[in-house]
């Protein structure tokens, strides 16, 4: 079953509350599956200081030589390694790709949960309440976050099995899906929903826009090639540093609710995930239509 949530803050006054609000949304979804969970958070000044390269790693299992290589790299670039449960978060005065290359050289076989400026991806095994508390998510800040709480149906319960997945620099990919839909394992795969050439006429949907955050587009893909390469059922939430998008398959049996106010845009598997957000009583609320891409950018 699984549950997904996403929150995109338009008003900077809410940035200090991002972690608290996202944790509340994720925990509300925990009875849709709570064997493991993950979040991608954009803009926390402590975890991912502005202007630094950021890489989130899982299954870091290095020997002495690996640790020494990592230390040498970090020494020259003011590198900082933070361990948050199963995740090792690296930041350095280098671009994220350079940092990623160095991390892969130091720790062959390491799993990359995410990478890109301002992006931290945290994952772990356990229920969302325990995990988010252990990460200190309540005090995290930023402008955007997505989260996933998982009920494993086709693969092992491990931190790496939890969403979100990285498919590009800055990206995070969350789904509620059932077999045979699987997230792409190829790091070079680009989510088609980000392909602006695939759009047709923008459509009018409920909601509002405000300077800073704009609805980038809502469109019906011209062809089904725009959808993820899958013949399964899914609701997909994709984010990168500056935008996020929601799309459902043609049947749309995997649940999704979107809410939008002047202060934020939010998505959840169910409305109750959104019910604690400030000002939700005045939000435009709707269920996304099948095979329509809803996208916002800032």
């Amino acid at each position, binding site marked *: 079953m699984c549950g997904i949530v996403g929150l995109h803050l338009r008003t900077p006054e809410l940035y200090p509350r991002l972690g608290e609000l996202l944790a509340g949304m994720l925990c509300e979804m925990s009875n849709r599956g709570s064997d493991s969970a993950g979040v991608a958070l954009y803009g926390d000044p402590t975890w991912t200081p502005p202007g630094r390269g950021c890489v989130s790693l899982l299954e870091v299992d290095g020997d002495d030589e690996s640790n020494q290589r990592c230390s040498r790299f970090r020494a020259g670039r003011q590198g900082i390694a933070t361990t948050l449960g199963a995740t090792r978060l690296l930041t350095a005065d280098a671009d994220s790709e350079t940092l990623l290359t160095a991390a892969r050289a130091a720790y062959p076989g390491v799993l990359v949960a995410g990478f890109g400026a301002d992006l931290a991806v945290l994952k772990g095994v356990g229920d969302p309440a325990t995990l988010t508390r252990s990460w200190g998510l309540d005090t995290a800040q930023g402008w955007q976050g997505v989260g996933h709480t998982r009920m494993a149906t086709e693969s092992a319960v491990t931190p790496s099995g939890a969403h979100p997945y990285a498919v590009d620099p800055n990206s995070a990919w969350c789904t509620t899906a059932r077999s045979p839909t699987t997230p792409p394992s190829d790091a070079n795969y680009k989510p088609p929903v980000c392909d602006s050439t695939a759009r047709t006429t923008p459509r009018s949907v409920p909601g509002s826009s405000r300077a800073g955050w704009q609805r980038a587009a809502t469109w019906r893909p011209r062809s089904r090639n725009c959808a993820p390469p899958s013949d399964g059922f899914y609701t997909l939430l994709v984010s990168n540093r500056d935008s996020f998008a929601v799309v459902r398959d043609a049947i*749309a*049996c995997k*649940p999704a609710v979107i809410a939008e106010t002047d202060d934020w845009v939010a998505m959840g598997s*169910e*409305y*109750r*995930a*959104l*019910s*604690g957000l400030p000002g939700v009583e005045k939000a435009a*609320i*709707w*269920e996304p239509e099948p095979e329509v891409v809803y996208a916002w950018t800032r």
Partner: protein
Amino acid sequence: MDTVTRFDLAKVPLREVNTALHAPHLTGEFVIENPAGTHNVAVGMNADVKVTVDGHVGYYAAGMNQRASITIDGNAGTGVAENMMSGTVWVKGNASQSAGAHRPRRAADD
């Protein structure tokens, strides 16, 4: 005039509310506040009463209804008014999927 009984789901557990609505010889009018997307609100009613849910509900709201007039002043999640036998269920917002779904009665049931 019938009295209006109010339940606040922010303060009272859902099971307690549904149990109260299942009381024998139930009469009057009921308002359920702050549903906040909760599942299974006002399920299994079997009385000639009026129930208003003031807000959005989750899955299976007003399921298995008999005789009651239930108004949901908001959106409903999957499966609102499933297996309804009589009465009315009015969703003022969006009714999502499987609204009013019903398993037809078969001879083998009798």
